[in-house]
C-alpha cells in the first residue's frame, strides 16, 4: 500500500466522529426547524447517528450485540414513525398546518 | 383515667369535633353545647391534673421526673414515640389552654355562619394546642404544631372580618416558614443523637458530650438561631410581628382569644422546652440579645404603636406584643425570679388578654365597629360592662392586687440583677401601658354618649360566664400567687441550674456603654 494512502486510513474514531456530527446536525434541526415533519426527520437522523455508533463499536469489538441493538432501534423507530405520522395527520386535519409555532392551543 | 389523663385532655375535643361533624347542620344549639361539654371535660381533667401534680416533677433531662407519662412507639424506624408528660412548665400551660378553649366556646356562641365547620375546627384547634404543650417528643411536638396551623387558618379565613383572606394567608405563611426552620433543626438533632425524645436530647446536650454533627459549634449556633426564628414568629418578636395585628383584627372574637391566650405562649414555651435545655450554651450566648434586648424592644415598640391605634382590637393586639416582651425579658434573665415571672406572665397575659378580647367583642357585637373615637359615654348605657372593662384594663396595666402586677414585678426583679439598664427602659413600658389603656378607657366610656348607642343592651349572661372565671382567677392569683408559683418554681430552679455560669450573662452593648458613661 502506498505511503500516502495511510493518511486516509479510516479508523473507528472517524466513524464515531461522523456519528457525533450527524447527531449534532439532528439536534440542531430539532431545535431550529419549525415544521413538525422536518423535526421528525431530524430525530430520525439522530437515531441513525446512534445506529452508526452502535455498528461501529460492535465491529470494533468484533461482537454482534451492537448490531442486534441496531435492529431494535430500527424496529422501534418504525413503530414510532407510524404513530407520529398519524398524529400529524390528525392534527393537520383540524388545524391545516404542521408548523409547531402555530400549534399553540395549550397555554398557561 | 388517671393513667391516660393527658391523652384524655388532648383528644377529648377531637372526639367532640367528630361528633359535631356527624350532627345535622341546622342544630346550632346542640353543637354549641357539645363544644361546651367537650372543652369543659378537659378543663375539669386539667384541674384534676393540677391536684394530682406534684411540684417535685421537675422534668427537664430526667425522664423519671415527668408525671403522667405516656410513651408508645409510633414510627419505629425513626424512633419516634407518642410521648406525653408534664412537668412544672407544661402543667400550667395545659390548664391555660383548657381554660381558654372553654371560655372561647362561649365567646363563639354568636357565630352564625357555617356553625358546624366552625366548632369542628375549633375543637381540632383545642386538641392541637394541648398536644403541643404535652409532647415530649420533638416530632410529635412538630406534628401538633403544624396541625394547629390549619384550623387557625380557616377560622380566620372563613369567619374573619373583611380582610380575612389576607390575614389568614399572612398568618399561615409566617408560621409555616417558622416551622420549616424547626423541622430542619429537628432533623439535625435526630441524625446526631438518633432520638427525637426531648428528654433524652436534653440530657445528652446538658452533659456537653455532643454527638454527631452537633459537635460542630457552628451547627449548634445555627440551630439555636433557626429555632429562635421559628418560635419568634409565634411570640411574635419585633421584626416578625406584622402578622399579629392583621390576624387579630380580622379574626372572630373567640379566635382572637385563642390566638392571644394560647398560641402566642407556644413561642415562649417552645424556647423554654426546646432551645433552653437542648442548647444551653448557645442560650447563654444569645439570650441577652435575642430575648433580652428584643424583649425590651417589644415592650416599648408595642406600647408606642398601641398608643397610636384607633381600633380597639388593634390596640389590644399591640398590647399583646408589648406584654410578651416582659415574658422574653424574664426568660433572658436566666435566674429563678425572672423565669418564674416569665412563666407567670405567660399565664397572666393569657387570661387577661382573653378577657380584653372578649370585652372588645362585646362592644363590636353591638356597635359593629371598634373605632375608639366613634365610641364614648358608654358608662351610662352599659355600667356593668364598664366595670368589667375597667377591671380588665387595670389587670392589663399591672395594678397591684391583680395577677399581672406580680408577674411583671418578678420579671423586673430577675432582670434587674442582670440587665439593669434594659430593665429600667422596660419599666418605662408600664407607664406607657397605663397611658394607652387609660386613654382608651376614657374615650370609650366617658364623654358624650352617641345617639345610635342608646339602644345598646348591657353585657349579657353568656358574656359574663365567659369572663367571670377569668376575672376571679386574675384577682385570686393577684392576691395569692402561691398556688401557681409553687408548682412552677422547682422546675424553673432546675432549668436555671443548667446555666451554672450565668455571671457572664449581660447585655454587653448597653452595659459597656453605661460603664463607659458613668466612668468618664
Amino acid at each position, binding site marked *: 500500500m502506498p505511503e500516502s494512502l495511510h493518511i486516509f486510513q479510516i479508523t473507528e474514531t472517524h466513524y464515531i466522529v461522523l456519528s457525533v456530527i450527524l447527531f449534532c446536525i439532528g439536534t440542531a434541526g430539532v431545535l431550529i426547524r419549525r415544521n413538525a415533519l422536518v423535526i421528525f426527520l431530524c430525530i430520525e437522523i439522530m437515531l441513525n447517528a446512534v445506529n452508526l*455508533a452502535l455498528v461501529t463499536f460492535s465491529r470494533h469489538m468484533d461482537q454482534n450485540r*451492537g448490531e442486534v441493538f441496531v435492529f431494535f432501534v430500527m424496529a422501534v423507530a418504525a413503530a414510532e414513525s407510524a404513530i407520529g405520522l398519524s398524529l400529524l395527520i390528525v392534527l393537520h386535519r383540524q388545524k391545516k398546518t404542521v408548523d409547531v409555532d402555530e400549534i399553540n392551543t*395549550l397555554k398557561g | 383515667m388517671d393513667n391516660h389523663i393527658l391523652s384524655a385532655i388532648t383528644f377529648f375535643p377531637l372526639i367532640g369535633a367528630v361528633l359535631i361533624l356527624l350532627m345535622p347542620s341546622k342544630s346550632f344549639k346542640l353543637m354549641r353545647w357539645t363544644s361546651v361539654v367537650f372543652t369543659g371535660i378537659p378543663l375539669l381533667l386539667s384541674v384534676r391534673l393540677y391536684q394530682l401534680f406534684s411540684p417535685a416533677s421537675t422534668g427537664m433531662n430526667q425522664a423519671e421526673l415527668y408525671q403522667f407519662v405516656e410513651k408508645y412507639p409510633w414510627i419505629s424506624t425513626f424512633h419516634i414515640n407518642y410521648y406525653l408528660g408534664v412537668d412544672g412548665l407544661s402543667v400550667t400551660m395545659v390548664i391555660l389552654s383548657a381554660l381558654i378553649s372553654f371560655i372561647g366556646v362561649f365567646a363563639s356562641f354568636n357565630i352564625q355562619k357555617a356553625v358546624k365547620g366552625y366548632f369542628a375546627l375549633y375543637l381540632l384547634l383545642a386538641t392541637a394546642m394541648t398536644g403541643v404543650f404535652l409532647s415530649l417528643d420533638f416530632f410529635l411536638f412538630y406534628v401538633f404544631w403544624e396541625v394547629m396551623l390549619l384550623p387557625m387558618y380557616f377560622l380566620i379565613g372563613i369567619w374573619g372580618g373583611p380582610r380575612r383572606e389576607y390575614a389568614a394567608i399572612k398568618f399561615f405563611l409566617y408560621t409555616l416558614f417558622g416551622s420549616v426552620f424547626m423541622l430542619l433543626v429537628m432533623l439535625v438533632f435526630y441524625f446526631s443523637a438518633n432520638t427525637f425524645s426531648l428528654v433524652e436530647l436534653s440530657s445528652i446536650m446538658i452533659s456537653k458530650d455532643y454527638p454527631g454533627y452537633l459537635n460542630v459549634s457552628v451547627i449548634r449556633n445555627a440551630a439555636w438561631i433557626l429555632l429562635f426564628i421559628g418560635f419568634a414568629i409565634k411570640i411574635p418578636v419585633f421584626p416578625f410581628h406584622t402578622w399579629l395585628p392583621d390576624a387579630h383584627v380580622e379574626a372572630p372574637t373567640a379566635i382572637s382569644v385563642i390566638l392571644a391566650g394560647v398560641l402566642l405562649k407556644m413561642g415562649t414555651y417552645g424556647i423554654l422546652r426546646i432551645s433552653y435545655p437542648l442548647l444551653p450554651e448557645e442560650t447563654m450566648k444569645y439570650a441577652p440579645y435575642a430575648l433580652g434586648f428584643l424583649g425590651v424592644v417589644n415592650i416599648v415598640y408595642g406600647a408606642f404603636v398601641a398608643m397610636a391605634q384607633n381600633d380597639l382590637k388593634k390596640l389590644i393586639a399591640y398590647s399583646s406584643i408589648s406584654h410578651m416582651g416582659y415574658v422574653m425579658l424574664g426568660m433572658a434573665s436566666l435566674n429563678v425570679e425572672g423565669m418564674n415571672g416569665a412563666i407567670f406572665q405567660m399565664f397572666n397575659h393569657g387570661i387577661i388578654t382573653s378577657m380584653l378580647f372578649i370585652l372588645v367583642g362585646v362592644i363590636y357585637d353591638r356597635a359593629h365597629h371598634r373605632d375608639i373615637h366613634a365610641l364614648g359615654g358608654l358608662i351610662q348605657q352599659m355600667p356593668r360592662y364598664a366595670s368589667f372593662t375597667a377591671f380588665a384594663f387595670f389587670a392589663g396595666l399591672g395594678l397591684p392586687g391583680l395577677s399581672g402586677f406580680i408577674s411583671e414585678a418578678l420579671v423586673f426583679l430577675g432582670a434587674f440583677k442582670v440587665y439593669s439598664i434594659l430593665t429600667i427602659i422596660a419599666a418605662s413600658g408600664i407607664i406607657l401601658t397605663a397611658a394607652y389603656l387609660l386613654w382608651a378607657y376614657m374615650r370609650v366610656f366617658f364623654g358624650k354618649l352617641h345617639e345610635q348607642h342608646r339602644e345598646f343592651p348591657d353585657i349579657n349572661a353568656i358574656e359574663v360566664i365567659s369572663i367571670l372565671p377569668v376575672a376571679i382567677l386574675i384577682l385570686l392569683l393577684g392576691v395569692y400567687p402561691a398556688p401557681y408559683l409553687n408548682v412552677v418554681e422547682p422546675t424553673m430552679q432546675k432549668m436555671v441550674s443548667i446555666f451554672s455560669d450565668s455571671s457572664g450573662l449581660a447585655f454587653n452593648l448597653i452595659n459597656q456603654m453605661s460603664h463607659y458613661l458613668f466612668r468618664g
Partner: protein
Amino acid sequence: MTEIMTDTISTNLQTIISTMRLGLLAPHLIVSMGGILLMLVSLLKKAAFKINAFLAIVVLGIASVCALNTGSDPQTGFNGMIKSDMFSNVFIWIYCATGIFTVLISHKYMERRKINVPEYYSLLLFAVSGLMFMTSASDLMILFVGLEILSVSLFVMAGIDIHDLRSTEAGLKYFLMSVFASAFLLFGIAFVYGATGSTEYSAIKDFALSNSFGRSPYLYAGVLLVLGGMAFKISAVPFHMWTPDVYQGAPLPVTAFLSTAPKIASFGFLFKFMAQFQNVQPYPDLLEDIVISLAVLSMIVGNLLALNQEDLKRMLAYSSITHMGYVMTAFASRSDTAISAALFYFAAYIFMNIGIFAVIAVISENNDKNLTLENFRGMAQKKPAMAFLFMIFLFSLAGIPPLIGFAAKFFVFSAVIQSGLYGLAVIGILNSAVSAYYYLRVVINMYLKAPEQDSGFDLNAIKYGMAEMLAITSCIAAIIILGLQPTSLIHFFEKIAL
C-alpha cells in the same frame, strides 16, 4: 448424524428455555397478553368499553399477585437481561395500582367525552407492561424496548381525543419531545456499550470498577447522556418544557397516569442503573454535581412557575416537577435509606396525584374548557364533601402533617441530611414551604371566596360515579392512614436493597 443434530438442537433449546425462566416475567407477560386480549374484545364494538375496563382491572390484579410469586431473592433470567427482585416487584405493584386507579377514573370521563374507544384500555395495559420491563431490565437493550413500549402507548393515549385539538397537540408534543429524549438516551447507551463492550448492568459495573470514569471518556459521556435522556422523561428542569402542555392537553385520566407511573419508572431505572457505579472510586464529581443541580433547579423552577399559574392542570404539572425534584434529592444522596425514602415517596405520590386528578375528573364533568383556579370559587358551599376531599389532597401535596405527603418529605429530607447534603435539604425544605402557597390558593378559592354567578361552570351539576368515588376514597384512606402510621410501609421498603 441428523439424530445427533436434532439432539443437540433440542438440548440447546432446553438450556435456552431453562435459562429464560419465563416465571420471572409472569406479570409482564400477563399484562401484555391482557393487552392483546383486550384488543380482541374491542372487536365486540358496543359493550367492549365496559368489558375492557373490567378486564383491565382483573389483568392488573392478577399481575400484581403474580409478582408476589417470584419471591424476594434476586433472580436473573434471559441470560442476564432480566433481574427480578423485591425492588422490581415493588415497582410492579406500584404500576399495577396506578393502572387500576387510572381505569377507575377513566371510565366515566371517557364516556362523557365520547372518547370511549375500547382500545384505550389495551394501550394502558401495554404501557404498564412497558413500565414493568423498564424496572425489571438488567440490560440497557431491554430498558430501551420497555421504554418505547411505554412511550408509543402513551403517545396514542395522550392524543386519543381526536376531535379535540388540545389532545392531539398534547400527543404530538409528547411524541416529539419523547423521541428526541430517547435519541439522547440511545446515544448514551451506544457510548456505554462502546466503552464497556456490553449493555448488561453487571458487565458495565465490572468495567466501571476496574477502569475508573476518568480513564474512559466514552463511559463518562454515555452515562451523562443516559442521565440527560432520563431527565427528559422525569421532566427535571431544564428538560421540563413539554410537561405543562402535555398535562393540560391530554385527557385527565391519561394525565393522571402520565404524571405518575412513567416518572416513577424512570427513577426506578436510574436508581437501578446508577447503583452499578455506587462503589466506583473516585465517584465522578461532575455526575454528582449534575444530579444535585437537576434536583435544585427542578425544585426551585417548578415552584416558581407554579406560583402564578391560573390553570389548575398546568399548576399541577409544575408542582409535579417540584415533587420529582424532591425525589431527585434522594437520588443525589446515593444511600440505601434514600432508596427506601424514594420508594415511600413514590407510593405517596401515586395516592396524592391519582386522587387529585380523580377529583378534577369529577369536577370537570361538564366543562370542556380549561379548568382555572377561579372555577373553584365557592366550591365549599356547593359541594362541601368534594371540596373537603380535594383540600386533603392539596394539603398532603403541600406536605402538612399528619398526611402522607409530610411523612414522604420527612423521609426524603432525612435521608438527604443523613448523607450530609445539608444545603440540598435546606433548599428542599424551604421549597416545600413555598409550595404550600400555591396549593393553598386553590383552597382559598374553594373556601374563602364567594361562588361566581356566571362563570359558565356549574359546580352544582357535578355527579359522582361509583368508580371515581372508589378511587378517591381509597386514596384518601391511604393518605390518612399511611400518614399517621407510615412505619410498616417504610420498614418494608427498608428491607429492599439494590
